[in-house]
């Protein structure tokens, strides 16, 4: 049997190409014929071509006490250097400060980060409208990488790496400004930064932190001689007294970690883990919409007024994980997460327009699976965790029709909805897939003589459909990880699979069997559990 290959966790259209991340590599496909053009692989020895060259410390210092739970709560770029840093592997997949309250849980969460790959895994992709640049967020090295499509004389394609910038915290969602010149990056710590798409090393030295009004706090301050912040007079509790004593013992140690030296600005922040960010142009103005684990969707103004919050879309009762603003109906926002429903918002006013039951549709799929496998159980406790929402505009009988496609973690199906003129979502089709849907992208082409509306979906070729943990057996038919569907009228029909490259081997690590699962399925972990982090008195 052939080796199991990594499935694709992110898909992104990039001009006339489709870029698809599998593990730590990126495949580029032509949209003409969906042929594979090239594969970018992580350089074996990590050599950041730009940005900070020093490697992250990899030794984990012993935690001093349970209070170290707040270690990771150091404000991203706004804080003086952290005294201690955690092993990058254990940081960030959890919401700040989660651990320490329940060590076991925290450890589960930290495993969620480790992907079992040799190189850092790609967690988000973005592409400029112009189609020339691709941006990738990588997990373990907390980096943002910018690539450029290069077509050589002989017609071959290459995705060339232009830069790597190591962010204060793990970036997890990406967007771009209207003019394609600035990256907007949300991190797991709750902060959203802007950084120029392109930067060169020479600028790098001088153009350190910008200091626009909204980002003063992100400015790097020269290390000050150590002065305890508390005086004996200020102390009025035992704990503060202890803190002061500890503080006095501290010396002027040189900072272990320095701030990023490239230009970056803190735009906004939630005290929660961010899950998605989109930038929208609406009525000539720009806005940033950010979603978090604590059920919030926040609407802020765009740069340079990103410090002004316009409003919130409140109604989710579980984590929010995906946001989708349909291009041609940009007054609307479709959001999904751990709730049973997809929500449709008028995001600028913060009003909920409609909701549609996604769980009911998911349950049908899971029941069918049970029947097919003569198993029982999973369908009884189906949980929705929306991992992708995509919009397609179709030519319809009377004008146009807007279609929304949603996928949910661990569910082998595409759920197709009609977004009505009244902004309701009507479930019109469920497409069963031979593997769990991991990512979905819509590709409309108007260029060719016959306009087509395609959907490419990535499926989990390793785990059994409906399961996020059970691997397929050797006797199962191997499945191709990328599938192409096309709209015929309103109906989505299968066309073919994409001929994908070799990809990294999906290693089975005996010691950490859950690692791959945690790379592909990290949303359900965001759900708050009853009894989690019970307050200790």
């Amino acid at each position: 049997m052939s080796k199991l290959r990594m499935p694709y966790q992110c898909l992104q259209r990039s001009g006339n190409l489709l870029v698809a991340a599998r593990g730590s590599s990126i495949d580029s496909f032509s949209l003409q014929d969906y042929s594979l053009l090239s594969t970018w692989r992580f350089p074996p020895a990590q050599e950041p071509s730009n940005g900070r060259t020093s490697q992250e410390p990899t030794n984990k210092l012993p935690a001093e006490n349970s209070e170290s739970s707040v270690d990771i709560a150091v404000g991203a770029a706004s804080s003086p250097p952290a005294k201690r840093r955690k092993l990058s592997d254990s940081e960030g997949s959890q919401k700040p400060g989660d651990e320490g309250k329940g060590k076991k849980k925290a450890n589960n969460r930290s495993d969620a980060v480790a992907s079992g790959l040799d190189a850092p895994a790609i967690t988000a992709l973005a592409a400029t409208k112009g189609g020339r640049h691709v941006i990738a967020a990588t997990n373990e090295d907390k980096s943002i990488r910018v690539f450029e499509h290069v077509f050589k004389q002989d017609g071959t394609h290459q995705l060339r790496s232009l830069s790597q910038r190591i962010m204060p915290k793990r970036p997890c969602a990406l967007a771009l400004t209207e003019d394609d010149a600035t990256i907007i990056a949300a991190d797991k710590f709750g902060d959203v930064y802007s950084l120029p798409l392109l930067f060169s090393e020479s600028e790098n030295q001088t153009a350190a932190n910008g200091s626009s009004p909204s980002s003063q706090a992100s400015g790097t301050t020269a290390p000050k001689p150590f002065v305890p912040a508390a005086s004996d007079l200020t102390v009025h509790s035992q704990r503060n007294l202890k803190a002061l004593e500890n503080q006095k013992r501290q010396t002027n140690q040189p900072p272990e970690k320095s701030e990023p030296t490239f230009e970056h600005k803190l735009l906004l922040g939630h005290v929660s883990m961010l899950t998605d960010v989109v930038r929208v142009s609406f009525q000539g103005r720009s806005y940033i919409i950010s979603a978090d684990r604590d059920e919030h969707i926040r609407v802020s103004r765009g740069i340079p007024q990103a410090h002004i919050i316009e409003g919130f879309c409140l109604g989710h009762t579980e984590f929010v994980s995906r946001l989708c603003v349909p291009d041609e109906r940009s007054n609307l926002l479709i959001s999904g997460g751990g709730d049973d429903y997809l929500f449709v918002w008028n995001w600028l006013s913060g009003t909920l327009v409609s909701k549609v039951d996604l769980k009911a549709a998911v349950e049908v799929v899971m029941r069918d699976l049970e029947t097919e496998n003569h198993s029982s159980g999973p369908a009884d406790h189906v949980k929705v965790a929306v991992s992708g929402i995509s919009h397609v505009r179709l030519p319809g009988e009377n004008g146009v029709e807007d279609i929304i496609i949603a996928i949910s973690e661990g569910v082998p199906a595409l759920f197709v909805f009609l977004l009505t003129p009244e902004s309701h979502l009507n479930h019109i089709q469920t497409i069963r897939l031979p593997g769990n849907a991991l990512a979905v992208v819509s590709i409309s082409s108007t260029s060719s003589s016959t306009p087509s509306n395609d959907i490419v979906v990535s499926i989990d070729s390793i785990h059994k459909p409906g399961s996020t943990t059970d691997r397929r057996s050797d006797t199962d038919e191997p499945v191709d990880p990328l599938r192409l569907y096309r709209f015929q009228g309103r109906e989505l029909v299968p066309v073919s699979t994409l001929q994908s490259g070799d990809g990294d081997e999906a290693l089975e690590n005996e010691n950490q069997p859950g690692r791959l699962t945690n790379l592909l399925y990290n949303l359900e972990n965001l759900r708050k559990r009853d009894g989690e982090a019970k307050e200790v008195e």
Partner: protein
Amino acid sequence: MAGPANKRQKREEYKNSYREESTVALPKKKFYRQRAHANPFSDHQLTYPVSPESMDWSSYYPAFVSTPPGSAVEDSNAATDGVRKLSQDVEVADIGCGFGGLLVALAPKLPNTLLLGMEIRTQVTEYVQDRIKALRAQNADTGLYQNAACLRANTMKFLPNFFKKHQLSKIFLCFPDPHFKARKHKARIVSTTLNSEYAYVVRPGGIIYTITDVEDLHNWMVQHFDSHPSFARVPEDEQEADECVSVMRTETEEGKKVERNKGPKFVALFRRLEDPEW
């Protein structure tokens, strides 16, 4: 935790009998003590409304409910199912109110304004609630303290769940936990990004009041509000003319402690500016 179990039992017994017997006597603080810090990043099993519209304030300010219970008049916009509306909105928030000294000192001075104390520690919140209940009973004839209430909340995460845009005219941040260590600064209640949330819930012209005995924290708060384009520092003469400032200095529990230790008190007020055109 063998000792604490016993203590907790005593404490529960006290609170139960206290609540049954008297509504007039002030609660005893020692039965409501709790360790000094709660982690603002963890989940805490908090309860909070999904949105300000779904918040039912009627049990917090019963004297201000516009449709009395049993009244046939039902709100026509039944979108906010079963929520009984108040005749006015909460306008003043004391964030991290502790044992409620500021709240109960301010309530009689602003009798027509609804004041809310927000506190993350359960025991401390309960104390303030019991304290307000007793004060309301003691002042049943004048109706004082009906305008003050306290609830448990992690304001660093859930402020927009309680208040709609520009709802508040004043926010008090009195003697916030200093979080001395640099790596805990994200736990501070004032930061560039949190200030955007304060700007969201406070109306233009509204005031943020800060006081601390930790000079470094004072400088931190000043730096972060000064650098935020939505705020401007209130000049000292105006600050000193504001009656809330003296209340803040003398009536908060922390303010009293600092007084006893003859410690310094640093005050800074910030005005919420109009948003520029967008």
